[in-house]
């Protein structure tokens, strides 16, 4: 599959994760969110930015409990709790959040 951003096709795998991580942009994130039926609020963007920073620092898309723990520390308890995060990203805060953030699927093959 592919996303369309400003007339350019951005390739993604069958699950909707982009193939080339360098092609990410905020416009693309908005497109992915639309495809996922996620309405992006200011808090959503904060989580996306957090995820991208986490990946930059550790080369790792965090597992969901690590996301919740760190979001609490970095973004405050209002956002950083599993109930809120799951409501924001119904398909899984780590899974869906990382998809919109243009990161690999979290290695959580439990």
């Amino acid at each position: 599959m592919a996303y369309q951003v400003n007339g350019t096709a951005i390739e993604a795998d069958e699950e909707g994760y982009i193939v080339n991580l360098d092609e990410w942009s905020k416009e693309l994130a908005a497109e992915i969110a639309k495809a996922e039926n996620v309405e992006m609020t200011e808090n959503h963007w904060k989580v996306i930015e957090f995820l991208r920073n986490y990946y930059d620092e550790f080369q790792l898309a965090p597992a969901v409990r690590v996301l919740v723990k760190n979001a609490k520390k970095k973004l405050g308890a209002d956002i950083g709790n599993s109930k809120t995060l799951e409501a924001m990203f119904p398909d899984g805060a780590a899974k869906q959040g990382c998809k919109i953030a243009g990161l690999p699927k979290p290695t959580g093959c439990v």
Partner: protein
Amino acid sequence: MPDAKKFLYVNRKAPYGTIYALESLEVVLIAAAFEQDVSLAFLDDGVFQLTKDQNTDGIGVKNFSPTFRALGDYEVTKLFVEKESLEERGLDPSDLQEITWEDEDADWEEKPSIRIVSRAEMADIMADQDVVLSF
């Protein structure tokens, strides 16, 4: 957790030349979710996994060394590195990257995850486990 088992992940291979180091780290990241008593051992060429300043731009392979610094988030806080293995390779602890974890019980104080141990201490650690997995 009373019935937690002691798991030791033994790393004796260098990174990049083979995939063992990366796939070992992937196991540890998953294992962290099972609330067992997890330790990592780095000896022989395994100590090369933790050197700082790894830069894989020139080989087109993902640099996974920063991921070791995320282990604290996953509550993996015991990385035992063997002193003799470092010395045999002309390295000392200052050649390794800094890896820390935040101690929730001590007001989130940052504590070092890497613990340099002698070969005899490493043997004691190995003998004190329930499950030893080697990579």
